[in-house]
């Protein structure tokens, strides 16, 4: 599988996964730590990776798929290169974060949870990130922007695009 010009699964990444599984197998309850690792390495946990984990940890693929789909941190589809999160926690919501999410949706022409066709942006509505003092809050990759408004959200996006 190729995502925005890059190979999703490489020999190197697989070796990394196998090594982490060796470590995790020593602990009780190795599945969750393994899935976290896989998500970190590949940016998602597609079926082909689930099959490898199933074989190595000796757990059924049905169970692993059940766990992967249960938790919102794990995704089956690869995400975009840059992730925009709009916090929809209560403090942000009552200060108008829904409008900001809609504005991004408009601007990027994708619904929350989707990735732009060029694979550059993924827009997500996120749970409380615990920065309620700055509400409403958005994050662009690791950078947190507080006290946002619809106007400066567009500004942030424009400025970020310049850095690409």
């Amino acid at each position, binding site marked *: 599988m190729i995502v925005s010009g890059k190979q999703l699964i490489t020999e190197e990444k697989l070796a990394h996964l196998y090594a982490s599984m060796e470590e995790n197998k020593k602990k009780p309850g190795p599945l969750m730590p393994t899935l976290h690792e896989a998500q970190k390495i590949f940016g998602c946990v597609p079926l082909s990776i689930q099959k490898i984990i199933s074989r190595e940890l000796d*757990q059924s693929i049905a169970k692993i798929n059940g766990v992967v789909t249960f938790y919102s941190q794990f995704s089956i589809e690869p995400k975009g290169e840059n992730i925009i999160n709009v916090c929809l926690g209560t403090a942000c919501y009552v200060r108008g974060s829904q*409008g900001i999410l809609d504005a991004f949706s408009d601007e990027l022409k994708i619904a929350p949870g989707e990735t732009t066709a060029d694979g550059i942006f993924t827009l997500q509505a996120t749970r*409380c990130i615990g920065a309620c003092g700055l509400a409403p809050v958005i994050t662009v990759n690791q950078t947190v922007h507080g006290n946002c408004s619809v106007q400066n959200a567009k500004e942030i996006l424009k400025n970020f695009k310049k850095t690409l």
Partner: protein
Amino acid sequence: MLERIHVIICGGEACSKQEAKDIKREFDRLLEQEGLTDEAKTVMTGCMGLCEYHPVVVMYPGEVFYQNITVEAVATIIEEHIKHGRIVEQYRIPEPFDRGKIKNISQLKFYKMQKRIALRNCGVINPLDISEYIARDGYFALAKVLREMDPKTVIDTMKQSGLRGRGGGGFPTGLKWEFAAKSVDDVKYVICNADEGDPGAFMDRAVLEGDPHSVLEAMAICGYAIGAHQGYIYVRAEYPVAVERLEIAIRQARELQILGRNILGSHFDFDIELRLGAGAFVCGEETALIASIEGERGMPRNKPPFPAVRGLWGRPTNVNNVETFANVPVIFMKGADWFKNVGTEKSSGTKVFALGGKIMNTGLIEIPMGTTLREAIYDIGGGIPNKRKFKAVQTGGPSGGCITEKYLDTPIDFDNLVELGSMMGSGGMIVMDEDNCMVDVARFYLDFTVEESCGKCTPCREGTKRMLDILNRICEGKGTEEDLDVLERLGKMIQESSLCGLGQTAPNPVLSTLKHFRSEYEAHVYDKVCPAGVCAKLTTFTITEDCIGCTKCARNCPVGAIHGKVKELHHIDPALCIHCGACKVACPVNAISTKPVMKEEHAHV
């Protein structure tokens, strides 16, 4: 050698993003350049709580509090404060009550009414250095317990203190420990529930990031009391800083043999491992959390058997929340009676609240139980900004309810909040003003629970979904008289028949708003108006005198319902308007009014 001046830089969530790190770097750079490194030292701490004024810096001695600091301000502070001992007036906090008098942190009204037990070290010590924790009597409680007390005395002390679980339910902690201690098994576990999922609550994050060792110490004490040798901290993956600081803290504790084999020279072994959550709110429920650590879908299990009897991997397990644990070392240092004397008779100690929403001083506060909601919101929180009117305060997150003006003088404790149809929850306190629509707020919370319901039991999986459908209908102006009754009936049914706490409390936001703001629901259903002007379909958009005639709204209107000449007041044609709100978004001067034209009898809402 001790430096003459310590510069404490808040590294909490609000402050640490971008600015705080740059500020510390600038301080370090200039101090070095000026040759003052023997004179002054910088320390980055956890959250100080007053997030509204981020980024903040406190200078010791003197506890001088500087707010909204920029990198450029650093040079001035070094020149004036550090070199010449003069306080830099322009960065002092604006205190509306007695301006000009207040200089240090403990005199600020925001801090004066607080009592910091769980947050005692947050914003004071460097969380990355175990020796700073030890210097504040850290791990003394553990040493005392291991040297002087048997497990039974430890549990008796906990029971005597009256500490109740801070995660929401308020179950007596000592009793919980006793159940786990009485279960006979050679393998037992201690779990710290750090899966802080309530939107609007971030106290556990503050403790984990600002004072991680207090949790480790308490878990070891708990392990000793119940006979466990392994602990797990289940922490949200959304809190990467907390995860990193916990890892560092655990490593440092192991190096000093405070964790591991023969702790502090005793015969007691205890170690702690981190496990990451993966974004499922229901995992805050203890049996779901246990399932998640075991590598299953995080679904709750039937109780009984309680985790104290059959928990993680079938072994007796004690699960406590972060804030609960953070209180434990203090109880052993200062005594159970001291702790019991703080707060009210049935709810001893303090509670940390996250003030958010429409309030001046957003941030974290720790107040003795029994403080009234009014004191928390107006005296500490500074009241409502922009001269708006208070409407409701929501406590307990998606499990709680809304409390109205009438009940603001209620002393906060576990039982009083339940009586008001809300609950303590993990401590989110979201203030709403007249611009918030209570039907919309109820819908917001239900949307959350529908998304987060694990799907195991029918009342929660299907019932909340039906309630949300009804609320969506009401917000779109398609609600009927029958809908309100159905909402109430369905809500009560879900409360009674759901498997776990998530379902049992999910209808609370709806039921409490139905009770206290029924007229607002009725306005939506009968008059088809949203009194707060939030539900777009039920709102009349008009343009006020503030219009500068920039024509942005007219250009953004998808149906061409807005007319007006450049630099003249514009108008919206109500017959063409489709209530999409695009004009409100586009307007640069906030001249689009969403106040509805409403009937007289609802005007008081």
